[in-house]
C-alpha cells in the first residue's frame, strides 16, 4: 500500500467523514482516494476553490460535529496557516496532512524535504500550541493518522500529520488492524441543553479541555477568533486573556508524556545516538542495525511526535551518550531543539541535506566517522 493511501484509509477508519482539499502534489493521492471512498461511507468530499477555503470548510464541518481533514503540501500548508491558528484558539478538532516537499516558495514539486518542522509549530501568528506527528513508514502513516484524529478530538485542537514525499509515495506491505482493534476517541459533548446559558469555554482546571457543543444542537453558543471568555464572547480583560492562553498551552503540555510517541533503539548503552523523524528515520535505523552487527555503540531515536517537542527524551538520555547526530532534510530545524534541551551534557551534531534527495545510510556512516 502507498503511504498516502494508508493515510486516507486510516482517516476513514478513524471516522473521518468530511474532507476538503485543493489539488497539490505530493499529497494528491489522498484527495483522489477520498473523493471515491467518502460517498460510499456516507461522508462528503469537496474540492474547494483554494487552500484557505478547504481549511475553512474543514473547520465548519467539524463545528457541525463531523470529523474532518484536509491534505496539502508546501505552498498549500503556508496558505492554511491563518485558519490553523483559528482552530487552535477556538479549540476545533481537525487534522491537517502536510506531505512535505522542497521549499521555499513553489520549491521542488515533487521532491522530498523535511523543512516544515518549524512552520508546523509556528506557522500562524500568535502563541498557540500544536500537535505534530511524523510517520516514517506506511504502517506508521496508518497508525499516526488514527492517533492524529484521537488526539485532535480528545484535546480539541488541530493536529498536523507531517509526512513527506518519500513516505507519502512509498509502497510497503502493512498489516491493517481488525475493526475491534482500532481504538477511537470521540470529542466530549455536553449533556442535554441547559435552561440557562451554556458556557462552552468554561473549564474546571487550567489543563482541562472545554466541552463545546456542535452547532445545530440547540445550545446557541458563540464561536469567535477573538480572544474570548468562558462564555465564548470577546474579552480584553487581562486576567481572562492570560487564562485562555495559559489553558490552551497547558492542556497540551500537561499531557506531553502521553502525546509524545518516541521509538528508541539500542539507546541504553550507545555512545552515539542517531535522532530523526519521518523518512530519514529509515536510513538512521539501517545504520544502527548494521553498526550494531559490527559492534558499534550506536542507537537511534524516531520522533513520531515532533510537537510538543519531547524534550524529556533528551533530558533523560543515559550518561554514556556522548553525541546525538540529528539527521534531517532541512538546515537543522530539529537539531536546534535538541541542542536547546541538551544543556551541554552531550554534543549535538547535525546531518542536514536540502537537495531534494533523501539522506542515505552511506551519508550517515560518513558523518559517523570521527564521532565514534
Amino acid at each position, binding site marked *: 500500500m502507498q503511504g498516502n493511501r494508508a493515510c486516507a484509509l486510516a482517516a476513514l477508519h478513524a471516522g473521518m*467523514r*468530511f474532507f*476538503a482539499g485543493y489539488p497539490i502534489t505530493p499529497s494528491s493521492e489522498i484527495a483522489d482516494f477520498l473523493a471515491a471512498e467518502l*460517498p460510499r461511507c*456516507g*461522508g*462528503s468530499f*469537496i474540492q*474547494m*476553490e*483554494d487552500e*484557505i*477555503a*478547504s*481549511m*475553512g*470548510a*474543514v*473547520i*465548519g*464541518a*467539524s*463545528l*457541525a*460535529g*463531523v470529523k*474532518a481533514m484536509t491534505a496539502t503540501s508546501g505552498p498549500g500548508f503556508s496558505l492554511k496557516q*491563518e*485558519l490553523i491558528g*483559528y482552530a487552535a484558539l477556538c479549540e476545533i478538532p481537525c487534522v491537517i496532512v502536510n506531505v512535505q516537499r522542497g521549499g521555499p516558495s513553489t520549491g521542488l514539486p515533487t521532491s522530498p524535504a523535511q523543512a516544515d518542522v518549524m512552520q508546523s509549530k509556528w506557522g500562524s501568528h500568535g502563541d498557540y500550541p500544536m500537535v505534530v506527528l511524523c510517520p516514517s513508514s506506511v504502517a506508521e502513516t496508518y497508525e499516526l493518522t488514527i492517533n492524529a484524529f484521537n488526539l485532535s478530538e480528545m484535546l480539541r485542537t488541530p493536529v498536523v500529520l507531517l509526512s513527506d514525499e518519500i513516505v507519502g509515495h512509498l509502497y510497503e506491505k502493512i498489516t491493517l488492524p481488525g475493526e475491534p482493534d482500532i481504538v477511537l476517541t470521540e470529542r466530549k459533548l455536553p449533556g442535554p441543553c441547559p435552561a440557562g*446559558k451554556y458556557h462552552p469555554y468554561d473549564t474546571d482546571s487550567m489543563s482541562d479541555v472545554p466541552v463545546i457543543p456542535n*452547532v*445545530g*444542537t*440547540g*445550545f*446557541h*453558543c*458563540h*464561536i*469567535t*477568533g*477573538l480572544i474570548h471568555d468562558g462564555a465564548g*464572547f*470577546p474579552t480584553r480583560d487581562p486576567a481572562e486573556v492570560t487564562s485562555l492562553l495559559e489553558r490552551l498551552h497547558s492542556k497540551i503540555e500537561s499531557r506531553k508524556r502521553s502525546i509524545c510517541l518516541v521509538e528508541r533503539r539500542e539507546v541504553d548503552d550507545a555512545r552515539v545516538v542517531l535522532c530523526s523523524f519521518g523518512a530519514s528515520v529509515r536510513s538512521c535505523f539501517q545504520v544502527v542495525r548494521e553498526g550494531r552487527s559490527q559492534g558499534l555503540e550506536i542507537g537511534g531515536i524516531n520522533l513520531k511526535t515532533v510537537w510538543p517537542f519531547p524534550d524529556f527524551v533528551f533530558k533523560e538520555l543515559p550518561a554514556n551518550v556522548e553525541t546525538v547526530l540529528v539527521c534531517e532534510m532541512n538546515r537543522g530545524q530539529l537539531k536546534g531543539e535538541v541542542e536547546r534541551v541538551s544543556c551541554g551534557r552531550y554534543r549535538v551534531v547535525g546531518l542536514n541535506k536540502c537537495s531534494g534527495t533523501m539522506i542515505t545510510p552511506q551519508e550517515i556512516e560518513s558523518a559517523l566517522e570521527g564521532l565514534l
Partner: protein
Amino acid sequence: MLRLDRLPHIWCPGCGNGIVTQAFLRAVHKRKMDTDKLVVVSGIGCSSRVVEFLDFDTVHTAHGRAIPFATGMKIANPDLNVVILAGDGDIAAIGGNHFIHGARRNIDLTVIIFNNFNYGMTGGQYSPLTVYGERAATAPYGMVETPFDMCELAKGAGATFVARSTTWHASDLTGLIDRALQHRGFSVVEVVTGCHVNYGKLNGRETPVKMLRWQRDHGVPVDKYHQLSEEDKVGMFPIGVLYHFTRPEYTHEYGKITGR
C-alpha cells in the same frame, strides 16, 4: 432572538447595521424558522460583529472566510439553515473568490451583504464597492477603480436568488430577506447601508439622515430602473428581486452520489 446581555452593540450611533439586523430578525420571525437549526456565520469587520448579539448558534470566523466555513457546515449537516452576514470589504475583496464559488456551486446558503462602501472598522478605507469618484481614507483624491456590482457578480457566478435593498427601504428589505431564506440555493441580498462616520463625512453625507436620503434618491425599484434611459441610470442602482432562477442545489446533487 437577541442576546440582550451582550448589548449595547459596538456600532456608532446612526450606523445602518442595526436596521439590516432588524430586517433579518423580522424575516426569521416571520418565517418561523427553527432557531436551533439556524447558524449565522460572519467574517471580520463592523457588520460581522453582529453575530455576537444574535441568540442562535453563531460563528465569527476569519476575514473573508465565512462562506468556506458555512460550506463545510452545510455539507456536514444539510439540515442546518446557514446564513452569512458580511460586510462589503469582507465578502467582495478578501472573500471574493469564495463568494463566486459559493454562487457557482449554488449551495443552499443565504448571504446578506452589509454594503457601506468602505472598511469602517479600520477607519474608512476604500473597498471593491466604493463608488467611483467618491473619497475614502485610502482614496483621498477620489476612487479611481470601478466597483463591483455584487448583484451582477452573483448572478454571473451562478447564484439563483439575487436581490438588493437599502436601509431606507427597510420594510421591503425584510420581505427580500424572507424570500432569500426561503430559497433553496445560493441566495444573495445586498443591502446598501450608511457609514456616515467614515464614508459619509468624506462625501458630503456626514449625518445618518443624509446617508438615508442618498439611498432613497439612488435606489430605484427594478421595474422603474429598467424604464430609465441609459443616461438616467448613471449613478442609480436597481432595488428589489433582481434575479430568481431554479437550478440544482449542491448538497442535493451530492446527496445523489451518497444516497442521502
